[in-house]
């Protein structure tokens, strides 16, 4: 079987794996976006004990390697009586990590709106919610996009670690094909290309969005 034929015959299985990789990525992203937002609110606007707890969470989950988190959740939780599948374990473990990073991205975005603007909003008679929705949020979104694109790329690439739990995502599908046909170079190159396209394509889109939303006159590049 020549290379081209191998590529053709392995593509369906690799695409199947790609779908799982995308599912993992989307779920982890949503996990991190939702929980991270709550954490960021706690950290930015919460009282002292809440800020303290959120800080601890963030420190802990930013300091443990992803692989250790994955193994801890998948093999450790059953000891406590929680049995979850490999896919869910991967979403949970990587989602908890993503939450810690996302909360920092949110926080930076919220805090990027200067205190002068908040003072002005209050002096106009805007309450907390109006200030948040009409002053902070529209500007925070713009600050949020670049680090979010970065975090998306990290999450996407880290889903390959679910391989270690036996999740049949893109990398493991490739490994199965290699076990049968033994052409690691070709298969790994295809896998690398798929990861590249998924990362590059989306970050490119986010870059375009960032440009579209740019506030005229602000920032270094003037158009």
């Amino acid at each position: 079987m020549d290379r081209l034929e191998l590529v053709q015959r392995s593509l369906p299985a690799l695409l199947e794996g790609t779908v799982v990789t995308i599912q993992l990525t989307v779920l982890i992203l949503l996990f991190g976006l939702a929980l991270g937002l709550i954490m960021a609110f706690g950290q930015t606007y919460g009282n002292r004990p809440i800020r303290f707890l959120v800080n601890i969470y963030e420190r802990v989950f930013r300091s443990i390697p992803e692989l250790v988190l994955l193994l801890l959740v998948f093999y450790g939780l059953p000891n406590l009586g929680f049995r979850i599948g490999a896919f869910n374990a991967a979403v949970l473990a990587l989602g908890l990590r993503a939450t810690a990073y996302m909360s920092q991205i949110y926080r930076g975005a919220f805090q990027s709106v200067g205190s002068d603007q908040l003072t002005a909003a209050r002096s106009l008679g805007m309450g907390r919610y109006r200030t948040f929705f009409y002053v902070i949020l529209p500007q925070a979104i713009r600050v949020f996009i670049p680090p979010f694109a970065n975090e998306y790329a990290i999450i996407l690439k880290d889903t390959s670690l679910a391989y270690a739990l036996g999740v049949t995502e893109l990398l493991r599908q490739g490994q199965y094909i290699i076990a049968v046909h033994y052409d690691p170079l070709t298969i790994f190159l295809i896998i690398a290309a798929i990861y590249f396209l998924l990362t590059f394509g989306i970050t490119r889109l986010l870059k375009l969005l960032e440009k579209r939303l740019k506030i005229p006159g602000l920032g270094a590049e003037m158009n």
Partner: protein
Amino acid sequence: MTDNRDEHKPLLEIKDLRKSFGDNLVLDGISFSLNPGEKKVIIGPSGTGKSTVLNCINRLIMPDGGEIWLDDTEVVGCDNINEIRQQIGYVFQGFGLFHHLTAIKNVMIGLTKVKGMSREEAEAKATAELERVGLTDVSDSYPAQLSGGQKQRVAIARALAMEPMLMLFDEPTSALDPELIGEVLTVMKALAREGMTMLVVTHEMGFARSVSDEIIFMEKGHIVEKAHPEKMFSGPELQRTKDFLFKLDELYGKGGD
């Protein structure tokens, strides 16, 4: 001012205002009042609580004690501060323009989102207010595209659009290049002529002299002396006031117009 001043109730009356930040006593019993249409200027060395007085009036800072009466409402104890703030225009050193909105949208946002005015109505009002401060050609520019003087004039238009009964200015020209100060002062003087009640913290003695009905000299949380500007400049009661005004003269030049 007219002779029947005594019949008028003050528009703003401050009684024994007190505030500390930790151990630092910033306001140690400040009392004064403004009648409708009056303009008063607060001067004094930095760190003496001038800005804190203004910030207490719209409760951006919560006073520790004392009373602040705006017309018939007591501000310190009221529970509808957002409604009170709509009646007090506040212009400060840092402009506080919303970066993501054009000049006209900056003026409109308080009208549409706080006062619930329709878009069309707010746009007409904002256009008129920008015209009032001499800005019509930049209404679609973003704050980052404006000069400091233009920014501050947009901020003034934004405050005026809310139709406040009182305007507070906290060192409105201190962040501006010298050549841009004039355009902001011109707008403020015009506003004073229109009869707006104004309380201004500034080092611009020319403005203080030509516009204000009274100059309040504050130091270390106290009012040291208050007097009509002519009296203040010709011969203040206290040596301390003289010394301070002399220093201002050195820094900013004589209090001419």
